[in-house]
């Protein structure tokens, strides 16, 4: 870890580690949280300082950790002059902000959370500037958006903080996505995301077709982050954050991220016309609009916010000009702006802290209360205005000379010197207003608090920064000089121009422009200072309320989305099913439209008239069932049964007795169970379409009919096409041939079910078990419609008769007329049981099997329940279907697993002959046991569904329902 590479990694990890630790501190742990942050930041800062020799003279320190090599994405930390100077800014100002925040944050605030966010943000920012990989850069970029969201919304009990945080997040995250796509394109052009490779491929990038889209996307990212017009709207609102956050985010970090990326990619992206027009125009507009708006702010922080926008515009403009000298100025100004803007925000925070207001109109003459703070603020503001002997002056001079130097002949170029002077004058004006309005004039009236000097340690960060402003301003070459040179060389390389960092360059045009700006600004302030206090928002651009536009567009997006969701989607089942059928129809028919429809050469058999009649009946039943399904459930159900019977006859006709048997049994059970359930369905409303059916309904039904007919016909045609073809060399021959010799059974269907494809059977019986459990669970909670809760009419009549007669108990009539069926059923039950067992045993060789046997037994159970009544059956018979299912499943499983003992896969069957006493030699296959499992499951599942329905009838309706029904009957 002590190698430079290791230290570099440690420097990045420290803030995150600190953040994680702070997150686990108790909310009241102020000092530990602060000390932790302070220590982590200082150590990281120390490491950064220690690493300086590693980047001197265009050296680059790289630490590459393998991450996602196959996609060309490694975790790559890269420290060069530029990232070094930004790291120092991030960590240095971070340390000062931490110190300041200790005194600024109120004791009630849960500061560990604050410091956790702050350090995470610091780490993300550090990660961004240290990224040696474009994707990694985008990664940390989004992280800064995220943590700035948390920091801005730290006081989330304020509506404004919540809104501002969300706005900043959405704006910068959207920009981040653009940036990501942009750098992906760059990566594709270069063939690598490695920054060193990218920086070496300037010509390749600029000559690529993808250059323009990549440029625009990256610029969108940078502009949203650096609050460039027209994406600047989020920044002033972000002032809802605690002041230390503003001081940090809007000086050295967050907003500088965009500028940083522009500087970082300047060597490869700058120099084209597109770059020049987009970047310099945006920068210029932002510079002017920001400065203009700053003049009219009444909120201290608001003024500083717009001034930040304006200064960012200045840096962007410098970068947009495309000349190396301007780029130097941009880097230098980025550093200078960070120092004076951070100190000004902190001073504003002190004023707010001490007076309880940030409204310039209420503030006045504070100098006498806080002379030290006032002096510090004055120096910093002078730097912001570009007064000589301060760092802001130097970079502004460079800017002014750059504005003069460019002569490509465009309108922007021509107007630039004048506009630059104007913007500088604006800066002088708002800086002057900031100082004069706050600190001079008569003593303030009606402040919420009596102001005083802030605690010493709260001022120290400002003092340090102001001293830096002065030192750099007076002795640039001795202080910032070498570091700036390293940074500039790391960006510009061989293209680094000769530049001078002297305070005095003699009487030259930039100096005159400076003087003009100072004069203009001061004059304007003297003229308009009273007027300015009465202004409510900046003239000309007052209507440009970014926030309103943003919120209105968000609302519009959501409204549009809702409308589109209704238009393109539906929550109703009917249209969904319609779509399902239509899409399936298309999928099925499309190949035929392309490849044509053709029958195979199979000659059909002659149609048997009897068979045809059977099928006509079946078809009629099916159509009738569909027709009546909605209006006459009973009839529809019986007709469905009819169609099922026809299927059954068909199977018999076509020599599939096994299928026919199973079909018959299944038809019986399902129909009976459905009939039992009918009683609980709500009574159908007689009149569906009060006042006649609408034409739209008729049309919809016609469409549905057409779709249904088309789907049916389509299916028929496809089935016909398949059936007229000879069966391809299918696996079914294998089954027929191997069933007896290897499966031990002559009933091929059964051998397939319990041996060849026993795994399917295991799955299917599981399905049956699950369905039974589900039906049981559903009916257990079943809440039928009110009108179906009470006893059915027939039962009521019977009970009434029983009650009316002497010596009869309720239920006697029912008992009487079911006597004979009951006796028959109770006597038949064992017989059916034996028959079921017979079906099960013979299944392997003849029609039957566990499934059929199970259903047979369940039919017996159902009839028993119907004839004897639920209570009577359950009093005499232990009906525990869930257990039967469980046993059945376990039996089937264990049979299958038995094969493991012999080293065979699951479900490998064994068959042999058992020599039983008396009976003699009987065939016995392990599949028989498996089939017994199936048998048990089928009985259990059917019985479970049956008792779920049966128990429904013996549930006692709650008292309120009974009362209500009695009332209704009384009326009726």
């Amino acid at each position, binding site marked *: 870890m002590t190698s430079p590479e290791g230290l570099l990694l440690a420097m990045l990890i420290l803030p995150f580690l600190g953040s994680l630790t702070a997150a686990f501190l108790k909310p009241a742990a102020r000092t530990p949280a602060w000390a932790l942050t302070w220590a982590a930041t200082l150590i990281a800062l120390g490491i950064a300082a220690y690493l300086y020799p590693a980047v001197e003279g265009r050296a680059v320190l790289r630490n590459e950790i393998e991450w*996602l090599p*196959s*996609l060309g*994405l490694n975790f790559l930390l890269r420290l060069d002059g530029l990232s070094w100077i930004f790291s120092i800014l991030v960590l240095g100002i971070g340390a000062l902000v931490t110190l300041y925040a200790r005194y600024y944050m109120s004791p009630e605030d849960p500061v560990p959370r604050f410091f956790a966010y702050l350090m995470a943000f610091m780490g993300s920012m550090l990660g961004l500037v240290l990224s040696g990989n474009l994707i990694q850069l985008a*990664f940390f970029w*989004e992280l800064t958006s*995220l943590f700035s969201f948390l920091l801005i919304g730290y006081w*989330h009990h304020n509506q404004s903080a*919540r809104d501002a*945080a969300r706005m900043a*997040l*959405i704006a910068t*995250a959207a920009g*981040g996505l653009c940036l990501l*796509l942009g750098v*992906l394109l760059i*990566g*594709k052009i270069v063939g690598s995301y490695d920054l060193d490779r990218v920086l070496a491929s300037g010509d390749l990038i600029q000559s690529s077709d*993808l250059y323009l889209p990549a440029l625009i996307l990256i610029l969108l990212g940078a502009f949203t982050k650096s609050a460039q017009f027209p994406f600047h709207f989020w920044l002033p609102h972000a002032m809802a954050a605690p002041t230390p956050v503003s001081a940090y985010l809007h000086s050295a970090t967050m907003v500088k991220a965009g500028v940083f990326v522009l500087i970082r990619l300047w060597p490869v992206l700058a120099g084209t016309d597109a770059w020049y027009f987009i970047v310099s125009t945006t920068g210029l507009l932002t510079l002017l609009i920001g400065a203009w708006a700053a003049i009219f702010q009444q909120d201290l922080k608001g003024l500083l916010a717009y001034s930040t926008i304006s200064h960012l515009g200045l840096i962007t403009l410098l970068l947009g000009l495309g000349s190396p000298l301007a780029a130097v100025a941009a880097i230098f100004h980025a550093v200078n702006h960070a120092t004076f803007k951070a100190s000004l925000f902190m001073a504003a925070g002190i004023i707010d802290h001490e007076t309880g207001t940030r409204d310039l109109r209420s503030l006045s003459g504070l100098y006498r209360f806080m002379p030290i703070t006032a002096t510090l603020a004055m120096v910093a503001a002078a730097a912001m205005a570009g007064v000589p002997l301060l760092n802001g002056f130097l970079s502004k001079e460079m800017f002014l000379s750059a504005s003069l130097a460019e002569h490509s002949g465009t309108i922007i170029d021509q107007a630039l010197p004048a506009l630059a002077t104007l913007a500088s004058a604006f800066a002088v004006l708002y800086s002057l207003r900031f100082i004069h309005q706050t600190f001079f004039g008569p003593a303030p009236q009606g402040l919420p608090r009596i102001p005083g000097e802030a605690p010493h340690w709260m001022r120290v960060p400002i003092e340090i920064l102001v001293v830096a402003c002065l030192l750099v301003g007076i002795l640039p070459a001795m202080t910032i000089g070498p570091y700036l040179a390293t940074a500039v060389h790391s960006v510009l390389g061989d293209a680094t121009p000769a530049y001078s960092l002297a305070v005095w360059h003699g009487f030259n045009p930039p100096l005159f422009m400076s003087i003009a700006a100072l004069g203009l600004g001061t004059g304007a302030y003297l003229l308009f200072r009273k007027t300015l206090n009465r202004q409510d928002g900046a003239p000309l651009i007052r209507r440009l309320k970014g926030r309103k536009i943003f919120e209105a567009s968000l609302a519009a997006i959501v409204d549009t*989305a809702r409308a*589109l*969701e209704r238009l*393109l*989607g539906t929550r109703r*089942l009917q249209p*969904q*099913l319609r*779509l399902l*059928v239509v*899409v399936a129809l298309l*999928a099925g028919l*499309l*190949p035929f439209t392309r490849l044509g429809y053709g029958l195979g050469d199979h000659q059909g058999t002659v149609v048997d008239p009897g068979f045809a009649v059977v099928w006509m009946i079946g078809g009629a039943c099916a159509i009738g069932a569909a027709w009546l399904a909605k209006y006459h459930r009973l009839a529809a159900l019986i007709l469905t049964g009819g169609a099922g019977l026809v299927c059954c006859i068909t199977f018999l006709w076509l020599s599939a007795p096994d299928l026919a048997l199973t079909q018959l049994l299944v038809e019986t059970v399902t129909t009976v169970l459905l009939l039992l359930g009918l009683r609980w369905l709500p009574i159908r409303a007689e009149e569906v379409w009060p006042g006649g059916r609408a034409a739209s309904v008729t049309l919809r039904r016609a469409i549905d009919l057409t779709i249904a007919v088309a789907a049916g016909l389509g299916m028929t045609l*496809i089935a016909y096409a*398949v059936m007229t073809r000879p069966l*391809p*060399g299918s*696996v079914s021959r*294998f089954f027929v*041939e191997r069933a007896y010799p290897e499966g031990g059974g002559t009933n091929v269907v059964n051998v397939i079910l319990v041996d*060849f*494809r026993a*795994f*399917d059977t295991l*799955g*299917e019986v*599981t*399905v049956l078990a699950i369905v039974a459990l*589900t039906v049981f*669970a*559903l009916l257990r909670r079943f809440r039928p419609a009110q009108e179906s809760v009470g006893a059915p009419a027939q039962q009521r009549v019977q009970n009434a008769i029983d009650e009316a007669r002497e010596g009869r108990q309720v239920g006697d009539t029912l008992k009487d007329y079911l006597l004979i069926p009951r006796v028959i059923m109770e006597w038949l039950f064992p017989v059916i049981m034996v028959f079921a067992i017979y079906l099960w045993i013979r299944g392997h060789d003849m029609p039957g099997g566990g499934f059929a046997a199970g259903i047979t037994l369940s039919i017996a159970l159902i009839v028993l329940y119907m004839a004897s009544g639920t209570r009577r059956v359950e009093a005499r018979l232990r009906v525990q279907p869930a257990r039967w*299912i469980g*046993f059945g499943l376990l039996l089937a*499983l264990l049979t299958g697993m038995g*094969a493991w003992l012999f080293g065979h896969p*699951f479900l*490998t069957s064994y068959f042999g002959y058992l020599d039983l006493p008396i009976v003699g030699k009987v065939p016995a296959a392990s599949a028989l046991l498996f089939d017994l499992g199936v048998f048990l499951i089928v009985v259990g599942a059917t019985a479970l569904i049956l008792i779920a329905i049966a128990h429904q009838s013996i549930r006692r*309706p*709650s008292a309120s*329902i009974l009362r209500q029904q009695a009332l209704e009957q009384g009326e009726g």
Partner: protein
Amino acid sequence: MAGVADHLIVMPVLLPLAASAAMLLMSERRRVLKRVISLATVMALITISVLLLRTAAASHDPLIYLLGDWPAPFGITLVLDRLSAAMLLLTNILGFTSLLYATARWDRAGPRFHALFLLQLMGLNGAFLTGDLFNLFVFFEVLLAASYGLLLHGAGRKRVTAGLHYVSINIATSLLFLIGASLTYGVTGTLNVADLAARIPAVAAEDLMLLQAGIGILGVAFFIKAGMWPLGFWLPGTYSAAVPPVAALFAILSKVGIYAMLRVLLLLPQDPSGSATHVVDEWLQIGGLATIAFGTIGVLSSKSLSRLAGYSLIISSGTLLASIGAGEAVLSGALFYLVSSTLGVSAFYLLIELVGRAETDMDTSPPADAVFDDEYVGVREEDQENEVGVVIPATLAILGGGFMFCALLLAGLPPLSGFIAKFAIINGLLDTGISPWTWTLAALILLSGLATIIATSRAGVDLIWTPDRPSRDLRLVEAVPVGMLLALCLGLMIFAGPIMRYMEQTADALDVTARQPPAILSDPEEGTTP
């Protein structure tokens, strides 16, 4: 075949089946025992999945298990390759977290929860393991049947309505599956997927339309499962009606459709005459784009978090469909995304109940007028005692953090794996060449992320940052599953390299199995010449 280790591949199906069968033998009242059994089962399943994953990663060829010792393609085979191993592990991890979460309270909201839950896992595991088209259908049925039960778990009007809706759609879907499978069988004469791959190129030109119709109809069934526009309208409503741990498990259900598609649709050969693969790719691309767009619209228009989660699933499906349609360069990224987005949505489903518990509680309290005396809905009051776990402090911070990470994961922003997943997809996409289609897809993928941020930030700010909301209780057993899922996503991020390598090998293998007949088949003629 010797030793239990050889049979490990079938255990993901048998173990949950055995455990739930055993639970059916127990009384409904033995809750603690059932919890222990089912949690132990799922933990065993995870262990098995990890072992299987390591086996699959180590071997070049897929592992074959011949059920009943019948040679392929006549018997049913289980096939373990990298894809199925990864899906197994994902399924069982989701199973564990959801189950753990459910033990806090939801498992008491209705009968036989644990049995149904394990059977659901059995169905999923089986569907991922089987190498047989009809057996796939069977396991689809198992997982669907179990999902009906789980969806209805907890009862209440909302769930029953959504449940019956879901049942109707899925029965229709199953019908399509059957039609498709039988058509495919009718033309090729086989159900074994590997055998299909071998036989499809040999299908005569005059039968080709039947095959295409069959696979097309199968595809529609898979698209419905995956929630492709315009076939996926059922999804958000259904999932939002389910109780949270169930919805969290359901996050993998739509991926079964995607998985089946990968296995079956890609079988269509790139033959010069019909250019069927091309058609499939086009369907996937167009359908995928439409699905992402619709999901984005849905996310923006959602008024509740659970619908938002449902639409996130639709976006996820759309992204997968389009990416699969984009070709092999994107496939590994798509698989990575599949894992990441499934974990994310699952965590989100768990979390939104915790965040919005004050709202959802209304749904579980018994209605004022019971129709029957023995009726109960939701968690019964007397069950609220003897809770598992302790109420943890700093609830809000944990919920807020969890919510934020989930949102970032769904939106594809750092620091969790969502970012890498989307990066991998777009990176692969740009490698396929820059076309209007690539642009649209990349833009839509990013826009869907932005829409997610817009929607979740609105909801998150409202739910977590707005003061004076009723305090919520949070139990450790509820926080831990969410934390585990998020930690897994963090792991995906940190170990992206090896995981992506695995996915790349998976994608390569998929390509191979789709285009060449693997050596697992015995000679098809062998069976016919005795």
